[in-house]
């Protein structure tokens, strides 16, 4: 324990010292950068220079409120840390003047305050734990996100980092595996395989050489959990992998990160170098004789490399295509050696399980799904961002309490969960507990954690088409059903969305979906029909409306829209005729105009242009007058 204790004492001192000075921290995850956080940081540097302010400037990762980025945290000695959102370079002078110089909290820009031990709280500003976005969250894996500097090993160690590795190295290998088993931790990449059981398989597999691999090839549309964890707490992943390496008897590991995550790669590289410098990775870790070397492998842009066997094939330097299982990687993985493959979030959970014990971990969640899960809220939701919630929470709580409900007061139609392999959960099922088994039973899946909220303006056929177009272009082409089947399913869906669908198409979709599920080589092909099958299950009437009535209930499929001019409202101003790119609108000045439906290309330009609400998208109008026929079909 000696080595780590010394480090801890030193780093904890550093960490505490930080709060004894004025401090400005900018959120610089990818979302922070995208929102202009780097410009805000630059403005802060300039302003503090001009005003000669004696403050430290630091950065952190995304705390999860991506919708409030760029975020800036300001703390003064003895005072609570205050987080400001929606910052711009223009707001910086006023912010610094108020908070730093006048020591006056700028309430209208402040989002919340974070309490520190012994710090004085500000009045009239919500505490982080009382903020509705955070109050129902349970943050373990994400607990350092937005709180520490992800590139600082000092911050990590000071907040309990590498303590679990130290503990693990003094345990028997099998005891670690038993502890993980008892915790009930299941794979967070989507499959939900019990982690301890997998470790046990690798540990028992024959062979002197074994590998530990981290799957950070996150690729689902709307999913950024792994990126956020890697950008915000890279050391936790390294520590989890090192513990796993010790437990299963591996001395080398790879982190397979998609190349589209340059910031995550950079922070991982920094973390590995630092950890090696301090004897927390590499040779003779913590002086305990355990060697563990970690390497990063950047992906080459293929979604299918998130599939474990394709990922291993890609690390080996070959084209990333899945191989047949069995043999499973636990027995024959990387270069034919026993390999433990887990997801980023799974490894990041491990130090917490070791530190706080399996009983604590197993006390969270439901009977078969323990702990917490990170989700990404995207789509038509007010609070887009990253959240971590206890397993078993309902989707309704996630969307309405944490997510702040649907944008623009629209009605929620469905939640797409689990990415291209997942499915849609409709409004009636929102009270389902979020755990592996309930979601599967509802025709969706936990997946890696992408939650896309769809509102009434989303066409369910179109959303199925969107996911299919994704899987179709990402199919590796190895097996026939996936390569050819996705193409034909996409063609059928495109046909339906453009008004050329036939009733037989529905049977063909069902048959293709069934055959692909039954025969495709890997998970991508086996599950890629899920978005179609689940939308057909809950929203069949939308499919029927497209095919039989040539009508898109959501008004999203452009080819099916019918634009008409309401003669009662039309003043004959001629603006629509002028903007129409197809020359489809005619009419005398000051008399109601008419749209020639033959010529109309349904671009919607006239609708936007009209100041008198005279142009109506007829399809959406008549749908609203229809009775709700959901599930009746």
């Amino acid at each position, binding site marked *: 324990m000696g080595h780590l204790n010394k480090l801890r004492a030193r780093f904890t001192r550093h960490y505490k010292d930080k709060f004894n000075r004025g401090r400005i921290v900018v959120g610089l995850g990818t979302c922070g950068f995208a929102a202009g956080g780097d410009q805000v940081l630059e403005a802060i540097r300039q302003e503090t220079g001009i005003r000669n302010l004696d403050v430290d400037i630091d950065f952190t990762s995304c705390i999860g409120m991506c919708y409030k980025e760029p975020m800036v945290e300001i703390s003064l000695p003895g005072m609570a840390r205050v987080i400001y959102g929606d910052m711009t370079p223009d707001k910086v002078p006023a912010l610094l003047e108020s908070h730093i110089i006048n020591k006056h909290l700028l309430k209208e820009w402040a989002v919340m305050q974070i309490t520190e031990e012994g710090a004085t709280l500000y009045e009239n500003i919500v505490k982080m734990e009382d903020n509705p976005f955070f109050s129902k969250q349970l943050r373990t894996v994400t607990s350092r996100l937005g709180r520490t500097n992800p590139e600082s090993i000092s911050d990590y160690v000071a907040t309990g980092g590498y303590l679990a590795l130290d503990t693990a190295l003094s345990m028997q290998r099998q005891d670690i595996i038993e502890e993980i088993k008892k915790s009930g931790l299941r794979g967070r990449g989507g499959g939900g395989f019990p982690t301890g059981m997998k470790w046990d398989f690798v540990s028992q597999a024959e062979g002197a050489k074994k590998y530990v691999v981290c799957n950070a090839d996150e690729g689902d549309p709307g999913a950024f959990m792994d990126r956020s964890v890697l950008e915000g707490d890279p050391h936790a992943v390294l520590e989890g992998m090192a513990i796993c390496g010790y437990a299963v008897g591996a001395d080398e590991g790879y982190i397979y990160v998609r190349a589209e995550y340059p910031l995550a790669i950079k922070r991982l590289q920094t973390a590995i170098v630092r950890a090696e410098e301090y004897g927390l990775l590499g040779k003779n870790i913590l002086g305990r004789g355990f060697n563990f070397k970690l390497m990063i492998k950047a992906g080459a842009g293929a979604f299918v490399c998130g599939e474990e066997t394709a990922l291993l094939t890609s690390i080996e330097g070959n084209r990333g295509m899945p191989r047949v299982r069995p043999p499973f990687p636990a027995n024959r993985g990387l270069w034919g050696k026993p390999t433990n493959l887990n997801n980023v979030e799974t490894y990041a959970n491990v130090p917490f399980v070791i530190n706080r014990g399996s009983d604590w971990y197993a006390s969270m969640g439901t009977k078969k799904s323990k702990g917490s899960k990170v989700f990404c809220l995207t789509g038509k939701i007010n609070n887009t961002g990253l959240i971590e919630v206890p397993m078993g929470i309902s989707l309704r709580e996630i969307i309405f309490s944490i997510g702040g409900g649907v944008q623009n007061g629209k009605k929620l139609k469905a939640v797409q969960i689990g990415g291209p392999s997942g499915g849609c959960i409709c409004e009636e099922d929102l009270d389902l507990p979020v755990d592996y088994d309930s979601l599967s039973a509802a025709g969706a899946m936990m997946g890696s954690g992408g939650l896309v909220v769809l509102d009434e303006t989303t066409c369910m056929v179109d959303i199925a088409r969107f996911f299919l177009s994704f899987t179709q272009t990402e199919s590796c*082409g190895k097996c026939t059903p996936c390569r050819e089947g996705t193409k034909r399913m996409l063609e059928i869906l495109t046909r339906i969305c453009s008004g050329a669908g036939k009733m037989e198409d529905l049977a063909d979709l069902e048959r293709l979906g069934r055959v692909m599920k*039954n025969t495709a080589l890997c998970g991508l092909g086996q599950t890629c029909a899920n978005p179609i099958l689940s939308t057909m299950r809950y929203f069949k009437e939308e499919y029927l409306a497209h095919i039989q009535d040539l009508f898109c209930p959501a008004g999203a499929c452009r080819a099916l829209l019918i634009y008409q001019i309401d003669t009662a409202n039309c003043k004959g101003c001629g603006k629509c005729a002028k903007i129409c790119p197809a020359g489809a609108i005619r009419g005398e000045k000051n008399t109601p105009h008419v749209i020639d439906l033959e010529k109309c290309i349904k671009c919607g330009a006239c609708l936007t242009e009209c100041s008198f609400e005279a142009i109506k998208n007829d399809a959406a109008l008549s749908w609203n007058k229809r009775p709700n026929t959901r599930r009746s079909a």
Partner: protein
Amino acid sequence: MAEITLSINNVNITVPQGTTVLEAAGQAGVFIPTFCHDPELTNFGACRMCVVEIEGLRSLSASCVTNATEGMVVHTDSPAVQEARKTILELLLANHPLDCLTCGRSGDCRLQDYAYLYGVKTGSFEGERHSYPLEDDNPFIVRDLNKCILCGKCVRACAEIQGNSILDFAYRGFDVKVAPAMDVSLKASDCVFCGNCVAMCPVGALQEKGLRSAAPTWEVRKVKTTCPYCGTGCSFELNVKGNKVVGVTSCDGDVNGRTLCVKGRFGYGFIHHPDRLTTPLIKKNGVFKEASWEEAIKLVAQKLGRIKAKHSSDALAVLSSARCTNEENYLLQKFTRAVLGTNNIDHCARL
């Protein structure tokens, strides 16, 4: 070796441990269609034609890559299997030129055979088809990627049999195709035109240029023989139309399996070539004249004898050919040492 017993279509069969379900079915006389499987290549499990239903499993299993286990209950012809195979065939045919009337592989094509077997006509999946240009710029192999079903046998044949690894899969999704590095033509690649990929191709995507344009498959007679090019003694089949050799195809040779080199597979043009020598020629007054073997051998013997008498045996040297068999080479060195009386014997050592 340990043995296991499994049931295939309600018949028990005992096989050695490690046998695949496909092999076990073969031993039980149960037919399972395959595109991507070949006993000489590594198992790929890609075409999914060989799926079977195994009781207790959620989905169908590719029998070529599933090991038989004790007590396994396999159904090779259940409704789910039938549906899967027919759908896969429909999907393949939906992206196939269907020009069997003029295709050089018609009559020797697995896609055609299985379409017939399962009664699959053009299916419900009309849509985009590939329209790659025909690759016809080399003298040996015609590559028509529109007919390719992406079974990957050519990729594995090139890597595992020939050891050249010229081919691999390129691109993604519907655009996946087999291509040399940088997607150039075979001619522009490092391909040695051994044609072992062609021998593996189950459809008309890779065809022998001369053979497939000379005769439809049902008009050729196959005559098994030994390649005359070198002493390896590879077996192959001469494809004969009428009395004319129109091409060479692989057969299962004891020496070579189905492997051949570019000369054996494509170098048959000499057989009917007008320049081919069919009798010995003796130069008389500066002009070659046809002669009998007796005359020719007699003349050579005379001349060799004369040189040996006048200049000693070591004035003679003999160079033998790799095209001779071991036995012929042995005889030639025996003749050189014992009859000519010199050790000046060598061999060109390659083709």
